[in-house]
């Protein structure tokens, strides 16, 4: 006998992500899920952002890594609440992990949470956490062909941050072609060019983040 199922395989994760989202909405907290390959500058961008937002907004960070507290230790030097999730080999964060991490944060005292996902352009895309905003960092030395190779992530995000633009004179990365491609794939996308090394473009990025948070402020 054939039994019709037609159920998304990730529906259990999706449901828990929706619960996380409801809880965060009620508290008026905006969650930004930062995804990218290893070494593209996820932690550097978060550190730059924390420096700009100090005294303006109450921010916490959730650090996802397969192992170690290296990133969490760096974030802790900025004096903000930080929770380290070690996935123990798993290539992405998921909704239950975010739920556990949220339980360790002073949620009634926060406006914004950055989640640094595991360094990987494939797996984090399919697992919703309960986030408001999805961001991918594409760093210049990785090359401008990543949207061809990893279309899923560029289709899923609200913003692409092109990092390490200070290296553009030294490596091949056609910014105009890259912009044309990702805009063609995902027309609503915000594209920001930054250098976490020199600070170029960071003010525009932070302004965009503040705008996202303001859109979700509880009335």
């Amino acid at each position, binding site marked *: *006998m*054939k*039994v*019709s*199922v*037609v*159920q*998304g*395989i*990730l*529906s*259990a*994760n999706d449901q828990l992500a929706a619960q996380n989202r409801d809880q965060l909405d009620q508290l008026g907290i905006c969650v930004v899920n930062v995804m990218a390959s290893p070494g593209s500058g996820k932690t550097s961008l978060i550190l730059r952002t924390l420096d700009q937002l100090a005294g303006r907004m109450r921010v916490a960070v959730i650090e996802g890594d397969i192992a170690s507290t290296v990133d969490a230790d760096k974030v802790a030097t900025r004096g903000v609440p930080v929770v380290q999730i070690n996935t123990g*080999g*798993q*290539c*992405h964060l*998921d909704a239950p992990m975010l739920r556990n991490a949220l339980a360790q944060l002073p949620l009634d005292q926060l406006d914004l949470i950055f989640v640094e996902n595991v360094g990987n352009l*494939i*797996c984090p*895309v*399919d*697992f919703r956490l309960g986030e408001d905003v999805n961001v991918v960092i594409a760093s210049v030395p990785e090359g401008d062909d990543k*949207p*061809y190779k990893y*279309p*899923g992530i560029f*289709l899923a995000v609200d913003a692409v941050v092109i990092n390490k633009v200070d290296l553009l004179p030294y490596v091949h990365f056609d910014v105009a072609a890259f912009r*044309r*491609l990702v*805009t*063609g*794939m995902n*027309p609503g996308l915000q594209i920001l060019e930054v250098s976490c090394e020199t600070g170029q473009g960071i003010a525009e990025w932070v302004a965009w983040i503040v705008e996202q948070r303001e859109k979700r402020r509880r009335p």
Partner: protein
Amino acid sequence: MHELSITQNILNIVGDYAGRAVAQKVTVIHLVVGELTGFVDDSIQFYFDMLSPGTMAEGARLEIQRIPAEVRCRSCGAIFALEGYKWTCPLCGEVGGDVQRGREFRIDSIEVVQGADLTPGREP
């Protein structure tokens, strides 16, 4: 690596529906997997063979239907396969487009043997 947790999800959903159908055994699981998802057939099969023993789905066949990625050009409306054209419309040259197919990731149906059919002397 995440095919392990994915496969556990598949077994949970299959067990749920098979239970509701008062099944004794699941014989086939029909999955629909789009090319744009990050899931690998062989890996799902590997974990399925590892996790399914002792469940109703033990010994079931996984039928995985892969859906190729298709994009609709926003300029001229042509539908083209993503693989060959690198996000460039073969008719008008426009870059990009709206994804029509290729993001599926679901269990479509299962085939089960119900309790009565397992009685001795009856072929399932």
